[in-house]
């Protein structure tokens, strides 16, 4: 199977599994890109995640970068389109029906049932991204923990924390 077909099939199926957004399928993208197909290393994956976050735009850009690593510019475009197409088609048709089911019991059960799974997947993403930066030991874990704590308990803007963490990296702390 050519790489482009693999990319298309993999990301089209991920598109419909991303309950709660792309951040929930980052662990699966990690598994496919690092473990199964070996398009990128563990450390490179975390770098790509950071680059995707640093660029403006939707957080699905990680998919664009993984596609680019696997198969160059065609890979980037195929992966991006594949990640969008199925969920966009579904959105187009579901949006018309959604309002009719406001307050319906099944709709509330679906929302309540998916919520903890979504949160579990988001936490798994944070775990894997942090792990990719941990080669150098406890200092990086400390940064992860301090950033998580500050974001949960204060209103400090994340960009300041990123600047500080990058500087600590430059200084050779991590």
């Amino acid at each position, binding site marked *: 199977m050519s790489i482009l077909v693999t990319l298309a099939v993999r990301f089209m199926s991920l598109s419909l599994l991303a309950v709660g957004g792309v951040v929930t399928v980052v662990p699966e993208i990690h598994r496919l890109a690092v473990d199964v197909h070996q398009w990128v290393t563990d450390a490179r994956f975390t770098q790509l995640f950071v*680059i995707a976050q640093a660029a403006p735009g939707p957080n699905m850009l990680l998919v664009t970068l993984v596609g680019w690593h696997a198969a160059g510019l065609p890979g980037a475009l195929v992966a991006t389109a594949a990640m969008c197409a199925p969920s966009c088609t579904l959105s187009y048709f579901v949006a018309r029906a959604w309002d009719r089911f406001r307050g319906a019991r099944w709709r509330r059960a679906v929302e309540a049932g998916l919520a903890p799974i979504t949160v579990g997947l988001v936490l798994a993403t944070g775990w894997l991204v942090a792990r990719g930066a941990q080669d150098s030991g406890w200092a990086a874990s400390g940064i992860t923990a301090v950033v998580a704590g500050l974001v949960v308990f204060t209103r400090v803007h994340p960009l300041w924390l990123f600047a500080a963490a990058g500087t600590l990296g430059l200084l050779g702390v991590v």
Partner: protein
Amino acid sequence: MTPPPAGAVRPPTVAELYRGFFHAGARGFGGVLPWARRMLVDERRWLTAAEFTDLFSLCNFLPGPNTINMTIIVGARFQGPRGSLAALAGILTLPVVAVLALALLHDRFGQLPGIDAFLRGLGAAAGGLVLATGLRMAVPLGRTPRVLAFLLVTFAAIALRRWPLVPVLLALAPASVLVAWLRRA
């Protein structure tokens, strides 16, 4: 979808949809959503605040990239399929070019001393930010046994055991929805 309320500004054209979402995408550092809201509700007044909140809960429910789904729904509402495609193209154009340019720069200059170390620092912080986001999302769910059990099992299966997503979701999602359904009976 309901039509725009009387008194709203006239519906945007296909070209205006492209331009509006192009700007939201271009400004969206750290996520497009806040910028999309600003553009849709505050600046161009294509949606009211309440309409935006409804749209947001729908986009959270739908699978796939949330803000991408939002472009599809807003575009469709005003201009049908052509509106959807215009809004989608608008929000993706600049970010895709920008992220590829960043990756190329990193390929070219990534060997310079300091770049890798800088990105390692950022990566550790990014992991912390995502963990914090998850913790904040967990708070309003409450600490019922159902919520905690499904949250922790999902985390352990994906992050610690590194199991594939498909079987994990196929096993956990229907079970969690079923328990939520029975609890509310």
